[in-house]
């Protein structure tokens, strides 16, 4: 229920719905349950010219560098209005009033003068007076509801009672550390802040005590709880003041949207299998110290990458590219195997060039280089282009089977699950501990058939299950 007020004052202002919302903001937000009665007479908001106060050191003019508010925004006392600069000093100007910004007297980079008006603020006459005059009829759960204001990102969560306490003590809410949920400011936080100002020694309040909302601390003592029956079920709506947040899709994300949309035009088929890495695990343990002495971290990826390259030598169609019109297939000579990397920005895929002529150790060196550049956000264009085949080791994060999406202009991709220790039967029918990893391949069904993918996968699998066999085919 919103209350529209008719203004009959001399200033030529008609009611805009926005205007009314400002004063009845709390009513608007929780309009189902709350009605606001004003006992003071309705009058025009008074426009006050807020002048730029003295900066000190005899300074008479400053440059306006940033506005934190715009015309039409509502401000509370002590909210930041703008940032000005004078001779190496940056000054935050805060509002002296509650009200609505009606005019900004300067633009960015203008010179502002001390003692001259900075902004015009319309003060709500009824609000400017002591808040006790407002009679607020609220439902029982009003203490749970909270009002919040947002001015260019300065958001303070606090119940009306807490806000009143702050106001009475001349405390700026943004200076108080909120310890409640979502950094909500509780009564205890105000009291703590006050104690600091007056120098009183307070015992530290552990966070745990802060969590129950204000309301429950006023509840009846435990003894009486026994006499109570089953607590009444929730009959009131749960107030949630979270807001949706919309951001534009830009930059790298936008490019990924394009790429993934193109990728899904490719008819994918999947092929999965299980690899017994028991022997490879042992081999790596033996080789790790040797690599360390040479200053390189040796993971499983260099082996997976080299084995894939050996497989591609036998099945080169998996290292090919189909042109836009599907007229020609280009068999790429270089095996530039991409390794999917998870970074702050998202999924990026640098590639190791010419794996077909690299040793496992050389691949490890290159991987180390790409990984450190990737985490520093310094990969170059050549590291990120020219890939012909991709492996994604999603298992380092978790998961077993996946359905990877082919990255155009490639025609195949493999996702590696995590290595699990599982019981398996050996040739003699005995159960033994096996190190099992799952692989999920996706391929472009326009030029790759299931049999080719299966044979490639089997070859790759045999190299990894019996690493000694790689020696036979290593170039």
């Amino acid at each position, binding site marked *: 229920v919103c209350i529209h007020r008719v203004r009959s004052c001399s200033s030529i202002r008609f009611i805009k719905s926005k205007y009314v919302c400002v004063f009845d903001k709390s009513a608007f937000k929780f309009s189902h349950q709350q009605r606001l009665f004003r006992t003071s007479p309705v009058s025009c908001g008074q426009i006050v010219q807020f002048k730029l106060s003295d*900066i*000190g*050191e005899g300074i008479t003019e400053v440059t306006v*560098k*940033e506005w934190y508010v715009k015309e039409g925004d509502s401000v509370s006392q*002590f909210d930041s209005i703008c*940032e000005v*600069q*004078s*001779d*190496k*000093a*940056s*000054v*935050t100007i*805060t509002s002296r009033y509650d009200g609505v910004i009606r005019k900004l007297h300067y633009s*960015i*980079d203008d010179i502002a003068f001390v003692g001259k008006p900075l902004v015009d603020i319309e003060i709500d006459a009824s609000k400017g007076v002591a808040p006790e005059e407002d009679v607020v009829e609220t439902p029982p759960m009003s203490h749970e509801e909270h009002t919040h204001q947002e001015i260019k990102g300065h958001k303070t969560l606090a119940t009306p009672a807490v806000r009143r306490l702050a106001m009475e003590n001349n405390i*700026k809410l943004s*200076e108080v*550390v909120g*310890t409640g949920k979502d950094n909500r400011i509780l009564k205890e936080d105000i009291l703590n*802040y006050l*104690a*600091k*100002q007056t*120098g*009183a*020694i*307070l*015992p*530290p309040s552990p966070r745990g005590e802060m969590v129950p909302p204000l309301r429950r601390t006023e509840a009846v003592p435990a003894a009486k709880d026994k006499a109570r029956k089953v607590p009444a079920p929730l009959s009131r709506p749960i107030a949630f003041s979270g807001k949706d947040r919309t951001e*534009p899709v*830009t*930059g*790298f994300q*936008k*490019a*990924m949207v*394009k*790429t993934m949309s*193109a990728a899904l035009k490719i008819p994918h088929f999947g092929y999965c299998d299980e690899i017994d890495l028991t022997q490879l695990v042992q081999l790596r343990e033996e080789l790790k110290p040797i690599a360390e002495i040479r200053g390189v971290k040796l993971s499983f990826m260099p082996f997976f990458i080299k084995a894939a390259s050996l497989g591609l030598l036998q099945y080169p169609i998996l290292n090919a*590219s189909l*042109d*836009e019109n599907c007229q020609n297939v*280009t068999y790429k000579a270089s095996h530039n195997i991409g390794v999917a990397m998870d970074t702050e*920005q998202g999924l*990026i895929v640098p590639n190791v060039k010419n794996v077909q002529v690299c040793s496992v150790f050389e691949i490890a060196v290159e991987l180390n280089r790409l990984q450190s550049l990737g985490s*520093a*956000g*310094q*990969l*170059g*264009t*050549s590291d*990120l*282009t020219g890939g012909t085949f991709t492996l994604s080791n999603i298992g380092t994060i978790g998961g077993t089977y996946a359905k990877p999406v082919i*990255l*155009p*202009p490639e025609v195949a991709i493999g996702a590696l699950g995590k290595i699990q220790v599982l019981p398996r039967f050996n040739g003699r029918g005995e159960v033994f501990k096996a190190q099992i990893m799952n692989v999920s391949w996706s391929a472009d069904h326009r030029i790759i058939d299931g049999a080719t993918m299966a044979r490639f996968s089997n070859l790759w699998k045999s190299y990894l299950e019996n690493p000694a066999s790689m020696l036979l085919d290593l170039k």
Partner: protein
Amino acid sequence: MVLQSFKNCLWLSCVLRTPKACFWSAASGDLIIQSVSNDIYQNLAVEDWIHDHMDLEKQQILFLWRNSPAVVIGRHQNPWQECNLRLLRQKNIKLARRRSGGGTVYHDLGNVNLTFFTTRKKYERMGNLELVVKALKALRPQLDVRVTDRYDILLDGQYKISGTAAKLGRTSAYHHCTLLCNADKFVLSSVLKSPYKGLKSNATPSVPASVKNLFEEDASLTSEMVLDAIAKEYAVQHQINHHITLINPADETLLPGISSKTKELETWEWVYGKTPKFSISTCLNIAYKDSVLDVKVNMDVKHGRIEVCNIELPEHWLPPGLHSELVKSLTGSKFCPNETTTLVTTLLRVCPQDDELHSRWSLLCENMIRLM
């Protein structure tokens, strides 16, 4: 009272371990504190915290801190205009934006930082700097140091050894300054030289100056001696014990809310996104095969993102669809080499697979990235 009797004590290692919760309130009289951290963001966050949470009516504070290599720009400055960002990335030197005004400085462990916290009414920079000069002269009377009216401290009448900046809030204020004791001048001069051309901006420009290290005048000096001398002089003038309390900027119980302040200072949105609007107007001279191409680039960057992008290429050097795709993708994107690299390489996946085309695209994009 006091001070002479304490002359022997108090190197920085002497710490009074006060129970944390009572620390701020129990200490009466003005305070001298020193950070145990060399992380620029953590130390800037301490300044924010004191500015926001302490009642400086009761006690003024002197804060002493040093940082591992970092470039610190003023609140309203443009990092592209002020320093060599490529070099910073290569050398792993951090970039931070402080909340006070003023120009760009280079910090390393050979530079000492001092912050004087007072109420807004008692804000007075000249007095603070005179205190520093007095302390240095007491330590080494032959040092020729003096304060200028630009709030710099000069050595031998010509070399800048200290720069100043300040932040004023509603009730509190702080004035901080650097002091070059033993910094790496070579790195300093190379990182503070911007290679970026064609920038037009209203951001506060820095005023370059010749610098010198204090220790070049007197090699027997150490940072500890300098800090101690300044603390001593502050203690005399504020009539308190000459005692420096160490604080840990990662201590959330002592400084509740400090880690979120630190995090905010590290975000891209603060460091780069707060750059005042600027424009770039330049010509890329790209060597391609046997000729040199002239590519005119005009960009408007607001909040660190490319608001408007214009790239003038020789006709048909790139297929027009691709040219407009590049411009469209760059618009709204961060003015950042990493973001642009991943963007253009990802876009390449959906371009026609033509080696010639790919090499032209990569060449153009690499040159664009060099602008960032």
